[in-house]
């Protein structure tokens, strides 16, 4: 019996092993939180997903568009262009022999077309962040092609001092509930990139996701990116359906790709 879940498409990350531990890729109708230290590749993954969501249906993708909410100024157009170019090149390579498909998708398979399909919002305060999420309700009703919303990063503007901490918690919870609603209503994926911090618990400092206590119970899945020696890894920290497992990945000039090491890839935890 093919359930609705099985018919849902996944958005590939560009790395086979990472896709594997994610159950095929990032799921629509779900909120996935991705956390990690600076420089580990959160923004790289965000940009990769904003590009990969656009892979045409003819090439096995969703043929969708992306909303990218940039709260930190990390989105660099030149990098997005590189990643789009890499995705197009590799996709065409894979499907090289299907001439008719290539001709049909000619116009779409250009880096500038991919960039044009990213709806970009740059926000500079927590009030702007809430305003944009409210705005999206109307926006998504008109733009039916959007299949992913990426927020990079979701907690930056909430990490300043808030006079009223209860207000902050309410705002964050409200925001995550609203995002959950959007995934269900519009059948799209929401990916929230988050920073890590050290928390003093049980007598020592532990690495933990920022503001985790306040709100991230509303996320369906949680993925942590981390360094394992000199290699980048990801592990499933929380998920109702995915097993705890880790996988290596790399950040190349083309974007997120398989790790280059030869050792055993996906590890169950």
């Amino acid at each position, binding site marked *: 019996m093919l359930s609705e879940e099985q018919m849902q498409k996944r958005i590939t990350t560009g790395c086979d092993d990472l896709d594997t531990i994610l159950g095929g890729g990032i799921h629509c109708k779900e909120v996935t939180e991705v956390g990690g230290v600076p420089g580990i590749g959160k923004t790289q993954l965000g940009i990769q997903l904003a590009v990969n969501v656009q892979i045409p249906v003819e090439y096995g993708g969703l043929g969708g568009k992306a909303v990218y909410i940039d709260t930190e*100024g990390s989105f660099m157009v030149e990098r997005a262009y590189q990643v789009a170019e890499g995705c197009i090149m590799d996709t065409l390579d894979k499907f090289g022999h299907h001439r008719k498909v290539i001709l049909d998708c000619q116009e779409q398979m250009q880096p500038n077309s991919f960039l044009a399909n990213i709806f970009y919002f740059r926000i500079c305060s927590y009030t702007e962040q809430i*305003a944009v999420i409210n705005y999206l309700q109307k926006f998504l009703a008109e733009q039916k092609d959007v299949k992913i919303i990426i927020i990079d990063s979701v907690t930056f503007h909430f990490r300043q001092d808030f006079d009223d901490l209860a207000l902050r918690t309410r705002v964050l919870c409200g925001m995550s509930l609203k995002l959950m609603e959007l995934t269900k209503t519009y059948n799209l994926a929401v990916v929230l990139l988050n920073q890590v*911090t050290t928390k003093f618990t049980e007598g020592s400092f*532990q*690495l933990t996701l920022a503001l985790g206590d306040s709100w991230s119970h509303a996320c369906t899945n949680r993925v942590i990116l981390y360094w394992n020696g000199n290699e980048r890894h990801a592990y499933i920290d929380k998920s109702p359906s995915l097993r705890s497992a880790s996988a290596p990945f790399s950040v190349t000039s083309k974007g997120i790709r398989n790790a280059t090491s030869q050792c055993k890839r996906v590890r169950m935890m």
Partner: protein
Amino acid sequence: MLDPHPTSFLSQRRLENGKDAMVPIKPESPLNLPTQKLSLGCPVLDRLVRGGLPVGSVTELAGESGTGKSQICLQLLLAALRPPSLGGLSAASLYIHSEFPFPLRRLRRLLTPFAPSSVVPTPLDHIFVRPAHSPDDLLSLLTAVDALLARPPSALPVRLLVVDSIAALFRSEFDNTPADLKRRSSLFFKIAAKLKEQARRFEAVVVVTNQVVDVVGGSESYGSSGNAIRVGNYGSLWSSGRRVCPALGLSWANCINTRIFLSRSDDIVRNERALVDEESDDRVHGTVVRTRRKMEMVFAPHLPEASCEFVIVSEGVFGVEAQSEKSETPSPTSQI
């Protein structure tokens, strides 16, 4: 769901037609985003950063004392004055310093043979200098800076903002208790949010310098109580033979877009060649000490891992092309 302010539902602050305005929220196309960069003043260094430091972004220069951070900042103040065709921004700069005094003499030295900045007759008129003694000082200053950015005193818009250094502002006021660290961390985010907002609204380049601290204890894994949590492309950073990491911890690292690490190391080499300045000659053992300076990309959203050697001379900071062992390094007139 809470809507904290009625107008914020519909609008954001944006720079439209050069003016600061509240505009209705609407998405932008990445194709229309500003992509300008500010040259570092040397083609070799510019290659390392793919053209220069980007507008709308906060770049950190981290390194121990004497590695060239302030020198590069001074170079950037002048580079900003050049037109875009020469890698500049045709812009004035604001230099906020927390170490005293402001290096005016070094700045003047950079000016003299400086042909390209003669596009502007009196460059020093377009460089605004303000002191900051504490984090609260900096925050008040940045709030006042909004007015400066919106209505610049000189004919040129202010599009380079330098904070030299962020670490010095936090030296004395905070203890190592969890409560104080949290208070300090909140200030980082407040300052960074303000800097990023100004970078974005005024299409400015923001540069912040930072010091380094020695790496202590712990392993590079979760649950470490040391400060050795790996951040960026390098498992460890070295300077003057010591393992170091940029100050202000993981919190501050989360506040910047790009981190560049400057280091120096004194190599002892066997020398049969003529003596070059900056090398002390140990004739008894036939060795000399040569100072090598390196610039490394620790993390950046648009740049791969890369590094470059450089020198500091009276004319400024210049990158050195990677060369084979046998060939001579360029011999500048006087190294600093």
